[in-house]
């Protein structure tokens, strides 16, 4: 075992990348849940985003177009969920699970031709002299544009929920859809838009895995990140900053255990592989002492009958 083989700079840079898919997926789900909808189909929307993004990037040669296609793909799939739960008033839990199963199967079908291909690479953002700062440069200023977009999105969602009228209305709908309806807000429309935002974010997160993190296409390659994102939203008490913290924690430990595996630490690989899940959940359970933070209408079906 040789711990000195772990380069701290590459390690930190690596965990920022590992955390990004989780940030996108969880942030989208956070917005969906704040509007009072529980969409368990994150994993399915991510994998659809992964294959849509991969295919579009390979066909057009442009990774950015790939990410755009991933967002559209995730949002279109989420529309199916929105139709089931908001129009036909189907059960949200069952619809979400169905969405995940459907997404996993459908992505495998779409991806048949793309196994074993390398996607075009997304260049790093050119920060000029900033990139040459020792340590900080490679850690902070050597990434692709999508990673920074994820961070910007955390800030935007936080500020949007807290300071804008649209954010207030979204929270109000999640808190009490009956009261919001009585005041004349369009509950179904607002929730559908939130679900689509969640789908687009999940799609971006999925494409980040298939285009940047791995980068290749394999069936089921999201490997449960969607489920971690769902857990993360709850344990982050529906707060964007805590969610970012949880995502970094998860990304950090994932990266660490990969490095430890590489360094040949004498712990069975299975324990190392499970450690990110266990530690992230433990830490966030301790952090999330305020259990009343859940939106009061979360998971409840709305119908404007009364």
């Amino acid at each position, binding site marked *: 075992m040789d711990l000195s083989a772990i380069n701290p700079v590459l390690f930190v840079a690596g965990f920022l990348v590992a955390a990004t898919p989780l940030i996108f997926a969880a942030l989208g789900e956070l917005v969906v849940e704040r509007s009072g909808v529980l969409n368990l189909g994150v994993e399915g929307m991510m994998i659809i985003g992964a294959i849509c993004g991969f295919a579009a990037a390979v066909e057009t040669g442009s990774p950015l177009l790939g990410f755009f296609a991933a967002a559209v793909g995730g949002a279109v799939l989420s529309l199916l969920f929105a139709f089931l739960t908001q129009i036909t008033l189907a059960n949200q839990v069952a619809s979400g699970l169905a969405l995940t199963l459907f997404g996993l199967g459908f992505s495998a079908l779409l991806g048949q031709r793309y196994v074993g291909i390398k996607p075009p690479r997304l260049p790093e953002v050119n920060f000029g002299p900033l990139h040459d700062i020792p340590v900080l440069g490679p850690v902070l200023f050597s990434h692709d544009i999508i990673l920074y977009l994820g961070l910007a999105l955390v800030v935007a969602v936080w500020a949007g929920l807290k300071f804008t*009228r649209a954010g*207030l209305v979204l929270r*109000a709908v999640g808190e009490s859809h009956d009261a919001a309806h*009585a005041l004349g807000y369009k509950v179904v429309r607002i929730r559908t838009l939130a679900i689509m935002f969640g789908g687009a974010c999940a799609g971006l997160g999925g494409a980040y895995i298939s285009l940047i993190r791995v980068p290749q296409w394999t069936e089921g390659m999201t490997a449960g990140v969607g489920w971690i994102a769902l857990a993360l939203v709850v344990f982050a008490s529906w707060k964007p900053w805590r969610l970012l913290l949880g995502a970094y924690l998860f990304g950090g430990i994932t990266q660490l255990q990969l490095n430890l595996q590489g360094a040949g630490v004498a712990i069975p690989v299975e324990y190392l592989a499970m450690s990110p899940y266990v530690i992230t959940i433990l830490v966030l359970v301790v952090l999330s002492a305020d259990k009343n933070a859940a939106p009061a209408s979360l998971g409840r079906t709305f119908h404007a009958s009364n």
Partner: protein
Amino acid sequence: MTDTPLLALSGLTKAYPGVVANDGVSLRIAPGEVHALLGENGAGKSTLVKMIYGLVKPDSGKMEMNGSAYTPQEPRDARAAGVGMVFQHFSLFDALSVAENIALGMEHAPKLRRLSHQIREVSEAYGLPLSPDRIVGDLSAGERQRVEIIRCLLQDPKLLIMDEPTSVLTPQEVEILFKTLRKLSAEGTAILYISHKLEEIRNLCDSATILRLGRVVGHCTPAHTTAREMAEMMVGSTLKTPTRAGKTPGKVVLDIQRLSAKSPSAFGMPLREITVQVRAGEVLGIGGVAGNGQDELLAALSGEAPCAAGMIVFDGQDVGPLGPTARRRLGILTAPEERLGHAAVPDMTLVENAMLTGAAREKLERRGMLDWQAAKRFAENIVAKFDVRTPGAANVARSLSGGNLQKFVIGREVLQRPRVLVVNQPTWGVDASAAAAIRQALLDLAENGAAVIVVSQDLDELMEISDLFAALNEGRLSVPRPAQGLTVEEIGLMMGGAHGMEVAHV
């Protein structure tokens, strides 16, 4: 009254599948007029105001505001036209602050800081103190209502609709509300006031329109009409007043000693050292504003939330730690407030619902096997004795009207020969004739030697049937006093007076 009314409705009709909620309703409200809308549940009051507020579109008929056509497509249009509404079930968001709640109900909400300032100004001008930063979930019912009223007032309404505004207030809080409303009326704001509390309407309103089964059946000037006359116009028949014979109470059946219990829900109210005795043949009325421990008290008495040993003694036996079935077997029966969901399972038939609470005491269950024949006889007996209007006991509970289901729920317990019966809001949302029948049944039960505890927010009801009256306030029970001769002021003070309210600076 001026010649052009502020709001004129003519021939408004709205039908839902199977029922005509409003049938050719016409109404005129002048600026500054306080107009009462009276009617039993299901008479169409809510549908009518929802049409005025733009939540429901009429099938036919015309609405005019200041002489020009008024057709609100949604509440936004209504608010823009100067119509404000204070809802019966508050349309507030518990987890948001007062200022955020108010911003949600406004078209062009200013920045939160400026809005907070305006809230303070308006609340002081009308004597309704309110702190904009507080979380609504922590407010009392009276304070929550202030949030709704101020939300309306900030938009300078010309017409304020109030749907049963006083059902959650103490008498002192009602007095403050009325001062505010009179001040508004003097400033030219018309008020459409929905209530079934007739004395309040006589006290406050200039004119009244009475609805029955969706039609206007009469107009009156409340100040010149007795409450009984108005009630009979609402019901369409003469009313029987419950009667009771003088009686001497027997020995103590239920002895509650320093009963304390935590509330199971986050926004609930813990019970604090409740001590009271109920004798055989006695009716104890428990008043108080909703949310002061009523639900928790009922849960503690029914056994849904068992309490510590020694806190509840029944006939010399400690029943504190016993669950509901064990208590039922002994003869302590309860009928909770919420008909659909708590007292009865909405999608189960009356027979199944009769089985659910009657199994232990009516021997409908033998060695784990259910005797459906006996349950059917029991359910049919309830339907017959309590005049429950339903095609048969095989109908699901949801299909019954509120009053009929309530008669079933109360009858189901009364016919199990309880030794102690605890009921919460026995006539809430029940029409006047069914309410009278339920009250009579409770009195008859006491007459036959049972101890009856009635928890209610309807003070008139409690005064009518109670021997002793006590009030719940913040989880504490006042010392019970003989109900006869209590004044409204005394009752109000027992209920905790005005919760931090001051009188309007009129």
